[in-house]
């Protein structure tokens, strides 16, 4: 019997988070909590793709830190810009 690979679980979680984001978009929900939740789920998705699809979970920290910094900086600044729009 073949074992389910870790990348299959990762793929499934990524699909679930995408469906969650789609439902939120379909309902046209807004507000700081919704924005924070969607951005957090995007951060998780990005980290999962980087770690498990790109294989960065096996590489030295000096390389990982570039990718993690990019994700945190871009998603963090998007969140900050959206919070300005709420005022």
């Amino acid at each position, binding site marked *: 019997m073949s074992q389910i690979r870790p990348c299959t679980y990762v793929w499934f979680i990524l699909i679930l988070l*995408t469906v969650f984001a789609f439902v939120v*978009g379909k309902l046209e929900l807004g507000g700081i909590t919704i924005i924070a939740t969607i951005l957090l*789920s*995007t951060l998780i*998705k990005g980290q999962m793709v980087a770690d498990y*699809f*790109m294989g960065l979970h096996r*590489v030295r920290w000096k390389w990982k830190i570039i990718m993690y910094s990019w994700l945190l900086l871009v998603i963090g600044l998007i969140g900050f810009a*959206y919070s300005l729009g709420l005022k």
Partner: protein
Amino acid sequence: MVNSISKSQPQSDLPGDFAIWIFIFAELLVFGIFFIAYAFARSYDVELFNASQSTLTREFGAINTIVLITSSFFVVRAVAAIKNDSSQICVNWLGAALFMGAIFLVIKMIEFYGKFSEGINMSTNTFYMFYLSLTFFHFMHVILGMVILTAILFKARQGGYSAKDHTGVETGASYWHMVDLVWIILFPLIYIIR
């Protein structure tokens, strides 16, 4: 827990050719600036951005996200196959990934055609300027990624890669995952959050 994982897995350098990673980090920098520019531009005219965003077909965005994630998953399987010295299986997974890439392009072209048919272009408003330029820029990256994957597929079919020599497959795979990663941020940014 983290320590036990890192001790059990040897730390290594980046997968694939190092040159592709310079390219990947440069691409991420450009896309990152684009995303941040979109978000700050939106803060000056939230109502316009929200109204324009409502005209987008979110189903297209969501389906394309699922398509690209699945395509990336197929590429992971292609890399695993070649590491196992299974060239034919690697070719099959790459073919499946390319098929998903083609689906992405078709859906995106339907979306572009719909917008252009409605008379929408980059001059319509700031939202559409960002929407069209960002998604078209990404569209071009999908095409480039597919060209790279096709070249790898043909070489793999000729037995050009093995368990010992599969740097080329990892190089193409890394680029394809970057294309997926960028879309993962682009999708909620353009289609969802408001």
